[in-house]
């Protein structure tokens, strides 16, 4: 769609070479689940003569490994617990429910950004550069910043092809808010024809409009205050995690039930707790939680230091080697290999 629109608008010359066009449409690294590439970014790369570049090849492999690490070590491990709790939320203590809600935020990030890393890494091994799709979104200090860092290829796609044509912020605040609500509802529908995705989109629309209304007031926080920044990051994370409840739940009713159990501090009957504890002992115990916690901290430390494309390792061959070996060992020793496919494949 973006190719057709860009050619129509005159921003991109129509591709006359059938093979190049076919390659653009079917480029395997990003075919299934993005990043959604614009023709301006990628088409010209297909016209360039590519020569094997060892630095790019190693960089690409590193990114693939990192994506695999995020998927099998973190995301699939967290999925075990999240799936258990979401299947029968009534069997779980409200603390378990809260943990599942928070862990799903990490799970979906690792799953989706892991896939993106594998896609970008695969393209890079061949010398092609795809756009960054995630830029540490859970460090966002507000919902607007979150959407500038999460699934960047689709958020910019909706901005350029829906929000701006609807008027953007050029036709007054009321129309701007209406356009935003439209964009988020469409974004929800993009994930599937399910009321839960619509609810998720609507929640984000409410968050975004509320934030913009607040931003427009004279009451502004001290943006360079460390504690205020931490608080903002935490609040944004909590709001996003809350919205993820609707995204993850099978139905609106189930999502509402989970929220109900959370706020009513649900405590299941002793026999149910007993059976649940036996299950958790073997499937997701304190060790699993400790391993998950450790690798989540590692994830955020590495991503905070290395930038999303992991390019800091390019000039550090020794660190690169150690990093790669450690990641491979983490995958071999701690990977969960009997789990699901990538979440975003279903979309």
């Amino acid at each position, binding site marked *: 769609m973006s190719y057709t629109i860009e050619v129509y608008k005159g921003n991109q010359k129509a591709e006359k070479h059938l093979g190049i066009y076919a390659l653009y449409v079917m480029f395997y690294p990003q075919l299934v689940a993005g990043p959604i590439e614009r023709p301006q970014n990628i088409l010209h790369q297909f016209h360039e003569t590519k020569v094997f570049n060892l630095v790019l090849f190693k960089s690409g492999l590193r990114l693939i490994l990192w994506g695999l690490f995020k998927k099998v070590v973190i995301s699939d*491990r967290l999925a075990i617990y999240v799936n258990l709790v979401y299947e029968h939320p009534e069997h779980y203590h409200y603390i378990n429910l809260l943990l599942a809600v928070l862990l799903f935020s990490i799970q979906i990030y690792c799953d989706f950004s892991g896939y993106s890393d594998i896609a970008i890494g695969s393209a890079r091994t061949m010398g092609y550069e795809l756009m960054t799709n995630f830029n540490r979104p859970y460090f966002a200090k507000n919902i607007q910043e979150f959407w500038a860092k999460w699934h960047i290829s689709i958020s910019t796609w909706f901005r350029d092809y829906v929000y701006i044509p609807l008027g953007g912020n050029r036709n007054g605040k009321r129309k701007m808010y209406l356009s935003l609500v439209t964009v988020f509802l469409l974004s929800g529908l993009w994930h599937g024809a399910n009321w839960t995705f619509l609810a998720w989109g609507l929640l984000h629309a409410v968050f975004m409009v509320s934030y913009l209304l607040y931003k427009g007031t004279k009451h502004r926080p001290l943006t360079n205050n460390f504690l205020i920044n931490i608080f903002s990051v935490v609040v944004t994370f909590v709001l996003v995690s809350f919205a993820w409840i609707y995204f993850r739940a099978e139905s609106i009713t189930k999502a509402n039930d989970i929220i109900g159990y959370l706020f009513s501090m649900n405590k299941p*009957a*002793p*026999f149910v707790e*007993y*059976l649940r504890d036996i299950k958790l*002992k*073997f*499937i*997701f*115990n304190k*060790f*699993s939680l400790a*391993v998950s916690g450790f690798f989540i901290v590692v994830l955020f430390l590495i991503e905070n230091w290395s930038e999303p494309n992991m390019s800091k390792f390019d000039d550090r061959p020794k660190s690169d080697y150690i990093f790669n*070996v450690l990641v*491979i*060992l983490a995958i*071999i*020793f*701690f*990977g*969960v*290999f*009997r789990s699901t496919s990538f979440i975003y494949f279903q979309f």
Partner: protein
Amino acid sequence: MSATVIAHLGYIIIESGIRKFNPFSYSRLDEIVNGKEKFDIVFFGSSRTQCHINPCIIDSLTGLNSYNAGKAGSNSLEVRMLLEAYLETHIPPKYVVYNIDNLTVSNLNTVPNSNLYLFFLNNKKMAQYLEGTFTHVEILRLIPFTRLLYFDDYLRNVAIQGHFSKTEVLNSINYCKGHASNTQDTIKDSEIVPNISKISSPDLTHVLAIIEICKENKIKLIFNSTPVIYLNNLPTSNQRVAKIDEVANRSKIDFIRFDTSKAFSKNDFIDLGHLNRLGSIKYSKLFANELNRKLISN
């Protein structure tokens, strides 16, 4: 290359940790799957076999050489697998006692807790059954460190604990020829609540296969059901036992039933489904007497 070497060493370290933590479970699985001793009677089933039947008591009262091959959490598929794996390396016993409970008639078609069997893939029958659970069983058998890909957090945790000298062995437990009793704790009154969980329709596929395997190997199969703490609150258990009763009558299999026995009080139980140490001693004695009666009458 370095990652491969480290992975292989890591596998050896993890396996040794698991053996250290589970000396009992490891050695009994080793006996069931690789052992050669000739037993007259072997008990199969779930934890209600493993915790309840004491072979030392059975041996002393019946004069037979028995072994407890019950495994916690086993469904009928796993029992069938263990039986065939046992028969792969052992001379067929004269009798097999198969404990009947909810898991016997569950329609689960996967082997639960299959990771433990990663260390026993040398047994051909076992490897055959696990082809559905693990991909490339042959590679797992020949290149041990590839089994790391199937380890779960439970096994990893166990391996670490094993290396810190922790084991699964608890005090006040009886161990004997595959049997491990529970402790002597008794169930609290507050824990005696109705089991209202839904149970799926019974599936006897593997039970019928076990009957055939025993017939082919000229083994006398005996069904048994262990005591339960309450009967009236478990109508679905009654239905399941009735289904097995039907099969037993049709196939002329003796069914030694203790689920309706009045000989047990709540003081004999550690939880809703399991006897404590003294409860299992009482049960083993009563069971041995029933066994003698059945064997003499036959």
